[in-house]
């Protein structure tokens, strides 16, 4: 017998590129093997009942595994949603599995499982806010999990972990906190339901090129040293801790590589005010420090 508690989890993907899953595979410590096989935190193991990319089985057996988890572990399992929820034309644009030879629209899964879960993590900007498939003109009528829950009156606790893709630490950290400290408490999440540990500060506040901004030294073309503001950087209006955390085991991140921040953790992504390559308007910049002001109030 073992004293490890099994937490059932279902990871469903809708209108997704799979990038959130692939980014999660890049977690360093704990490694993905630790997350799947061992204990994420001592005494707690996530039992992943379904995942499109890694589940061994296919077809009906895995569909039954998802349904069983919802029925047998109501209120006790964790639901992870990756990708947008297409709703146009009855949800025909994304289906997962079949019942009686009829495709099951993805939005039905989100509603069915969302209602029964202990908590839901919307992983990535697509499921958090609509992301790229929800960009103008939103051809498949996508909605975020937040919107679906609101419409359906679903009150299951929801945490948004956006990013295109999200940093693996943001997801694993959120998971670990759920297992260690339980459901989010008042003040843990910002008004977009993002954990403040990871999304509390603007990119701009910790940017390694910030001194160039303050001194008015702006890069005029790619490859120049200097602040990337005039080349379209969205760092001044984007909340995430990339400058401190850095990416892919700390080897680099967008601005360090010479490209501006694309604002991928924001609900405005990717439409913003123009191109990724166009300068944002100066009126947006005074938002810097908003979070600290709110905290001091």
């Amino acid at each position, binding site marked *: 017998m*073992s004293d490890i508690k099994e937490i059932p989890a279902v990871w469903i993907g809708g209108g*997704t*590129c*799979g*990038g959130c899953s*692939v*980014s999660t*595979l*890049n977690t360093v410590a704990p490694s993905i*093997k630790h997350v799947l*096989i061992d204990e994420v935190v001592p005494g707690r*193991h996530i*039992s*992943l009942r*379904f995942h*499109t*990319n*890694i*589940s*061994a*089985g*296919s077809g009906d057996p*895995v*569909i039954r595994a998802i349904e069983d988890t919802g029925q047998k572990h109501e209120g006790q399992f964790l639901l992870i949603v990756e990708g*947008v929820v297409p*709703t*146009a034309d009855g949800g*025909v*644009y*994304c*289906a*997962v599995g*079949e019942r009686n*030879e009829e495709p099951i629209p993805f939005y039905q899964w989100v509603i069915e499982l969302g209602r029964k879960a202990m908590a839901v993590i919307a992983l990535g900007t697509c499921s958090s806010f609509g992301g*790229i*498939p929800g960009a*103008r*003109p939103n*051809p*498949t*009528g996508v909605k975020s999990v937040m919107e679906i829950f609101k419409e359906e009156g679903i009150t299951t606790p929801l945490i948004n972990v956006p990013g*295109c*893709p999200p940093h693996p630490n943001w997801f694993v950290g959120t998971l670990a906190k759920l297992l260690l400290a339980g459901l989010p408490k008042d003040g843990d999440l910002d008004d977009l339901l993002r954990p403040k540990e990871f999304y509390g500060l603007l990119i701009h506040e910790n940017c390694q090129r910030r001194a160039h901004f303050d001194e008015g030294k702006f890069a005029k*073309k*790619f*490859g120049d040293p200097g602040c990337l503001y005039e080349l379209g950087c969205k760092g001044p209006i984007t909340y995430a801790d990339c400058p401190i955390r850095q990416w*892919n*085991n700390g*080897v*680099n991140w*967008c601005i360090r*590589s*010479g*490209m501006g921040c*694309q604002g991928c953790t924001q609900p405005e992504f*990717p439409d913003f005010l123009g*191109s*990724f*390559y*166009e300068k944002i308007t100066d009126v947006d910049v005074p938002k810097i420090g908003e979070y600290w002001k709110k905290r001091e109030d």
Partner: protein
Amino acid sequence: MGKIIIDPITRIEGHLKVETVVDGGEVKEAKCSGMLFRGFEKILEGRDPRDAQLITERICGVCNHCHTTASALGLDSAFGIADKIPDNGRIMRNLTMGFHQIQDHILHFYHLAALDYVDVTKVASYEGTDRTLNSIKAFISRGELAPFVPRYEGDYRFSSEVDHMLVSHYVQALEMRRKGHEATAILAGKVPHACAVTPGGMTEIPTVDKIATLLARAKELQEFVEDIYVPDVIKVAEKYSDYFEIGKGCGKYLSYGVYDLDGKDPDYTKRVRLFTQGSTSTDLQHQPLDLDQINEYIKHSWYEGDGTARHPFDGETNPMPGKEGGYSWIKAPRYNEETHEVGPLARVAVGYAAGDRATKEMVDSVLAHFKASPEVLFSVLGRHAARALCALHIANNLQGWILELNPGEPAYVEYTMPDQGTGVGIVEAARGALGHWVVIKDRKIGKYQCVVPTTWNASPMDGNGNHGPIEQSLIGTKVRDEQNPFEIVRIVRSFDPCIACAVHLLNHKGREMKRYIIS
């Protein structure tokens, strides 16, 4: 006569359904259906052309870097600067693609395909001191075996000893593929969804410290591919040798080539590439690449239209859910009016047919090991072997490319975006031929079309009733146990389908869909 419907096919990227009709233990009919549809090209219309590369890479979280590169090449050509990219930029694009593609091949073999052949639960009998295997043994003893069960049962052939070794390689491969991503990020900013590849070159500038760490990382990956990955594929092939006879498919192969060894020719079909452009068939005669021979059919896809085929520059894609005779969101591209398979097998076959020395040496040494002739390549195992050899071929070249970088020198050329223009960017993604066609109108995207590898491989029937490559590989296959149709999933996964890539077209015809409410 029975129907086997497998939905979803897991351990691939995206939503794929496979429906087969089995009579007397043999597949008589097969239908491959893409079950997701997002509308990327429609989203691109009217945007700043430079944004295309950052948006289209998000078509796929697995092959994102191939889209980035194809898009950047397409924009370079539309901006008239295809032959002006600094060597540093060309080489860094090759390196980021190369590191990314090696990790992609490793991911496919170990983490997507291997569980069809390797039985993780046999680790329960492990008696040694290896910590990794013992932790998996402890995991199994706790009795919660997800996500490794449920699964199909009854055809796992390895002895416990070999099985234990392959499971420990599965875990090691997780680390190696992560490191492949890290090496990509050193030059590309971050992965998935890199940012440093841009029209005009790269935003990064190579430095000596990056060169030093990349050399070490390239060596580590090369050793893994040569010492572990290739031998493991051979072990699978030895034990499951009947799969040299299964899943042959359409017998025609197309490759766009990839890794520009010289950037001077503005026409990508004429460039010297590490993997050669062209087409071939099971006769292994090489034909040069002609992009005008590509046409897409929509007769059996859920789009408005009839049986006529259109070139990507002229394609129309108005969705028509429930269309009579339709069974997929994937279109049916054909080359020279014929079904063509794309992917590592096509790359290897085209290279072999063109007489590329390195390709011939690698392939011949594997064939010699099995005392076999080239026709065994056209099979489930041939695809896995070709994929491993592609990884090896890239890995053998990375260190040389790294040493060609000029530290501190620019990797980017400035340009003026034209008001109008057309461009096409072609590369070989991990899964095969990938093309981006762009039309610029008034400094905005007028039209953008991607024809991606899985659109070729998982395509439905065309206007002439010819099945797609995966469908053709399934038809005629003997299925031993209809409750556990190993043959079908092994064939499908040998193509490494990526459905997120394959299905992304939509023309919404001005309809306001955002307010659509489900009744």
